[in-house]
């Protein structure tokens, strides 16, 4: 079925999520890369909105997203596009700001008939960066980057 995410660890510093969507490749690609679409779904659990979503979809172009919870709490994330191959692949950096490790995220879109499989791979730059994320994360509470790191380690041990 299309409604489950498969988690794998392609390497020691990567975690990958694979998911198939019941829509054509170009449509799924647009949903991931156009702000007017992204703000409708990349929101995590109920209760969050995305008041800021800026995407300059070209090699070297920057992106910036801000999430806001009902109680006013905000999280911001930004990065840069390293590669853009329309409808098939994007490579972008992602960081929660200074002091956080910058990950390199590759998203691949593959058509299979009218369905599209998306593989989203997150790569940490080094073990040092991971450790730094851990220390910062412990101080600031569980944030998504820290959780991502944990996800990676759990998958490695499993």
């Amino acid at each position, binding site marked *: 079925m299309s409604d489950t995410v498969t988690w794998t660890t392609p390497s020691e510093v990567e975690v990958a999520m694979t*998911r198939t*969507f019941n829509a054509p490749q170009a449509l799924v690609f647009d949903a991931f890369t156009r702000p007017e679409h992204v703000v409708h779904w990349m929101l995590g*659990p109920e209760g969050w909105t995305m008041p800021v979503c800026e995407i300059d979809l070209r090699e070297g172009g920057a992106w910036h997203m801000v999430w806001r919870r009902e109680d006013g709490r905000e999280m911001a994330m930004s990065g840069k596009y390293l590669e853009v191959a329309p409808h098939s692949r994007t490579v972008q950096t992602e960081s929660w700001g200074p002091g956080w490790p910058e990950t390199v995220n590759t998203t691949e879109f593959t058509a299979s008939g009218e369905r599209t499989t998306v593989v989203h791979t997150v790569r940490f730059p080094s073990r040092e960066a991971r*450790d730094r994320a*851990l220390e910062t994360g412990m101080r600031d509470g569980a944030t998504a980057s*820290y*959780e991502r790191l*944990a996800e990676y380690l*759990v998958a490695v*041990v499993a």
Partner: protein
Amino acid sequence: MADDPLSITFAALADPTRRAILARLAEGPATVKELSEPFPMSGPAISKHLKVLERAGLISRGRDAQWRPCALDATPLREVSEWADGYRRFWDASYRRLDAYLERMKEQTDE
């Protein structure tokens, strides 16, 4: 290195030999000698790894000085797993919402 429990757990898991030892112990307790067999390294080197795992609370060891079998203790891993659930929930929820959104997009494209 930070000395909070989670950081100690992660540091212990960062080494492939130690992960292999944990994978072996997931099948049942074992002696140091049994644990050393698959690895091309000395007994003292294995003992060093076991000490790191023990300090992280990932294994417990018998009291008998001559024969101290090691056993897996998954408690710290459970803590990590619970914490990882947040990230999993973010993408699971987002992707489910994307399913519904893609349906709407498809309808608009058809019109």
